[in-house]
């Protein structure tokens, strides 16, 4: 069984990080260039880590599967980034941001990690401004803020609706500078296919060049994974199509524990699925619920009618009915589940039956069409582009979709996994959001990890490794790992099946959404645990991967990723089944308050579940790290 030592420093909460920084070991500047560090991924976390470590003097190799390190899906984040700057003088503080994030996560994150995140949030804004990120400004030239869900202060910094893009391009610019200066060795079109562990330490990776098919070995003194979340286990999500869980699943199979995979976040206002061909779900900002009214037809018989033909008395404004005090502004998870229930009752709008209306007719009466356009014009445009419908004339149709995963590889306070030398940053780790992430906190965490945490904590590990002691890429462990990867590739290409990879990804996605989606039950999860192995079996025998292994072969890439998603899906279901409570994004029907809110069980489940691989076909072990709340009193999350 793995030992899970969180390595939380002792002392008062607000002093832990400062104290830790002064106590951890340092690497002497002239020794830094003797250490090689591999960074996989170049989203916010990966790009910021790679350039910062290079500036410190380490030799950095950066691997991305994209054609350029400017493409990672951090780029699609719209809303903003939180920071406890208190520029608005509205009472914000590090403690308040810490508390909001911890509470928003439904008390399932570590106090010390979250506090550190809140502390460095202010440095992130300074850093990004220095890089020339064109944040929104007030007329006086100072930085502007907006407010966001789950907070009573205005602490979100933004760059129009493209904050993620601008922050990522900022990190990319630093990465480009260090690549240009020869400090970072950048490998694009390069997908990590295995982690190499030598004498119990992570010492390298196996990589496939997606253009030439060449498989290569890379050794290093430490390996950093910053490879993002696993939401595409549901196939349809707001993630980019290429987002995948392959790096974290390969690390898992090499012994890294995977924590809380059942913590997935579902966003209530996305554009619904329109057909079987669908590849992607698009988010509509939840700010729309400020003025839109959510409803579904009362009678299943009306669901195919045009909404205008459904009389007022035949409409069910179900959020207003079920949650009279909060109405359309009830929390994300509650709104999502209510929409699902209406559709489950056969009242979902449209041919697919999976959609409810978000109606602006009253808002237009109140504010005029121009008033509504001023507030939401760009969102109405996006909606029109995708659906060809005008939301000024007819209500929008929306449905919840997966858009973030809080679970990920287990890491200690230093962001190191239970495999020494393997560090995990950003959405790929499990650490800071508990069971639910607040809006504008993902960007904050990615950059905190890369700019301000890993540069310190990696030194503590490397100082204990003798310079020049890293194994050569000719070591037996590298060869074994490479041979295994070649074997998998050959098997896929030789498979005599009939169906394209997408066929299995779609089926997995449907299954996950149905049984491990917004609302989970013991019975449903058990069903999933029967169906997933059957799907795996069928995938192995009936998948068709045309082409060869020595050119660009997107089917082959997808085959590997879907195989990993199948395994991850199974683990997610297992985790959801074992967690007999509801918290944040994990909702078990059996455990709810009468008003439909999550019912936590702090006595039994105030812990992190970190799953440890036991080999092919054997049940993984569920390790537990207790969450001790020393400074904050856990309470029932209540936004009413």
């Amino acid at each position, binding site marked *: 069984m793995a030992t899970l030592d969180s390595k939380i420093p002792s002392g008062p909460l607000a002093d832990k990080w400062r104290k830790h920084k002064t106590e951890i070991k340092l690497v002497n500047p002239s020794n830094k260039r003797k250490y090689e560090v591999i960074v996989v991924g170049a989203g916010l976390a990966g790009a910021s880590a790679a350039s*910062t470590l290079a500036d410190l003097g380490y030799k950095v190799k950066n691997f991305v599967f*994209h*054609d*350029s*390190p*400017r*493409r*990672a899906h951090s*780029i*699609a984040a719209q809303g903003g980034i939180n920071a406890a700057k208190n520029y608005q003088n509205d009472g914000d503080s590090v403690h308040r941001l810490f508390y909001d994030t911890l509470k928003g996560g439904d008390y399932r994150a570590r106090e010390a990690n979250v506090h550190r995140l809140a502390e460095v949030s202010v*440095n992130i804004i*300074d850093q990004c*401004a220095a*890089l*020339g990120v*064109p944040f*929104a400004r*007030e007329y*006086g*030239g100072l*930085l502007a803020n907006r407010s966001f869900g789950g907070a009573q202060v205005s602490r979100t910094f933004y*760059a129009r609706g*493209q904050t993620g893009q*601008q922050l990522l*391009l900022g990190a990319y*610019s*630093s990465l*480009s*500078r260090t*690549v*240009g200066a020869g400090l970072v060795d950048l490998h694009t079109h390069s997908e990590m296919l295995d982690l190499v562990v030598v004498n119990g330490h992570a010492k390298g990776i196996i990589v496939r060049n997606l253009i030439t098919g060449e498989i290569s070995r890379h050794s290093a003194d430490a390996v950093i994974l910053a490879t993002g979340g696993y939401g595409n286990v549901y196939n349809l999500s707001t993630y*980019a*199509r*290429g987002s995948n869980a392959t790096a974290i699943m390969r690390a898992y199979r090499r012994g890294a524990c995977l924590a809380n995979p059942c913590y997935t976040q579902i966003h209530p206002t996305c554009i619904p699925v329109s*057909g079987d*061909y*669908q*590849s*992607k779900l*698009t988010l509509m900002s939840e700010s729309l619920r400020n003025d839109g009214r959510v409803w579904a037809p009362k009678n299943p018989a009306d669901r*195919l009618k*045009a*909404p205008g033909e459904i009389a007022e008395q035949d409409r069910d404004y179900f959020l207003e009915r079920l949650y009279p005090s909060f109405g359309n502004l009830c929390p994300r998870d509650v709104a999502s589940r209510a929409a699902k229930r209406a559709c489950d009752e056969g009242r979902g709008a*449209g*041919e697919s039956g999976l959609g409810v209306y978000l109606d602006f007719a009253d808002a237009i009466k109140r504010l005029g069409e121009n008033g509504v356009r001023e507030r939401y014009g760009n969102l109405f445009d996006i909606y029109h*582009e995708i*659906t*060809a*419908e005008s939301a000024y004339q*007819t209500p929008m*149709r929306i449905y919840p979709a997966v858009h973030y995963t809080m679970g990920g590889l287990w890491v200690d306070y230093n962001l190191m996994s239970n495999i020494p030398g393997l560090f995990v940053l950003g959405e790929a780790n499990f650490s800071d959001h508990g069971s639910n992430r607040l809006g504008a906190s993902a960007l904050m965490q990615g950059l905190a990890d890369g700019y301000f945490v890993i540069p310190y904590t990696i030194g503590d590990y490397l100082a204990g490794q003798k310079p020049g002691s890293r194994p050569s890429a000719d070591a037996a462990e590298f060869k074994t790992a490479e041979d295994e990867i070649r074997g998998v590739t050959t098997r896929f290409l030789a498979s005599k099946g009939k169906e*394209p990879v*997408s066929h299995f990804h779609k089926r997995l996605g449907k299954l996950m959404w149905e049984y491990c989606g917004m609302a989970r039950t013991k019975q449903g999860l058990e069903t999933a645990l029967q169906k997933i192995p059957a799907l795996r079996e069928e995938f192995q025998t009936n998948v*068709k991967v*045309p*082409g060869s292994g020595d*050119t*660009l072969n*997107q*089917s082959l890439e997808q085959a590997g990723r879907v195989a990993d998603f199948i395994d991850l899906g199974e683990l997610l279901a297992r985790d959801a089944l074992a967690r007999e409570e509801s918290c944040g994004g994990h909702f078990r029907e059996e455990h709810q308050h009468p008003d439909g809110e999550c019912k936590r069980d702090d006595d039994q489940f105030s812990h992190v579940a970190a799953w440890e691989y036991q080999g092919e076909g054997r049940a993984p072990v569920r390790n537990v790290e207790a969450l001790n709340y020393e400074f904050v009193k856990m309470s029932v999350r209540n936004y009413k």
Partner: protein
Amino acid sequence: MVAEHSSKNFGITLRVWRQAGPTQPGRFVDYQSQDLNPNMSFLEMLDVVNDELTRKGEEPIAFAHDCREGICGTCACTINGKPHGPGKGVATCQVYMRAFRDGDVVTVEPFRAAAFPVIKDLVIDRSAFDRIQQAGGFITARAGSAPEANALPVPKPDADLAMDAAVCIGCGACVAACKNASAMLFVAAKVSHLGLMPQGQAERDRRVLAMVGVMDAEGFGNCTNQYECSAACPKLISHDFIARMNRDYFTASLRAAVKPASSGASGGA
């Protein structure tokens, strides 16, 4: 209301550029794409065609894509002769099948430019863009060295204009649309974004000289003010930024001719 009721399914002939590898010759191949739903995206249509090809044991069409919401800059198809296809201010992934009619012949090819060699089918190599950025598309600010953000106010009009340029997604449509395959709009967007910010002043001259130098060395053509670039840009970035960059380049060149006496590193005290 919903388009799915009002429209019937339809079919098109897809004329796709197939090319096995960078050094192999390419050619157009026709495929029938039937049962199209107008609400499908263009890339979803390609997904369906690819699944059919796979079932038949043929190699699917390689095409680049990722976010499918017009922000990552990965997708890059020229559709019916237009980079990113019909429609203004959208990327290939934001093209929907309702833009086509039953029986249409739709040609799809990669963005064409000498500096963007074809890797396979519709996938091109745009690493030249990264090399231009590596030459100077940054403000040097090591983590840990940044001053308090509000210590340096940025006039709102400057920040807004910088943002207009900074929205570039690095797709390369500007190059593909230009008869000279010039990368001026791409480079000008970055030079203008950073040059408009007070933080970007220290490296302003060096930046524009270095980026333009690499741009020329990568084999992009000259700008002859055709403005096709802005029209094809999925973010509709204005060609005014090109004029701004030309001014910057001119001033920087003049200043570079007069070098300070001691530009080397000085010894410590």
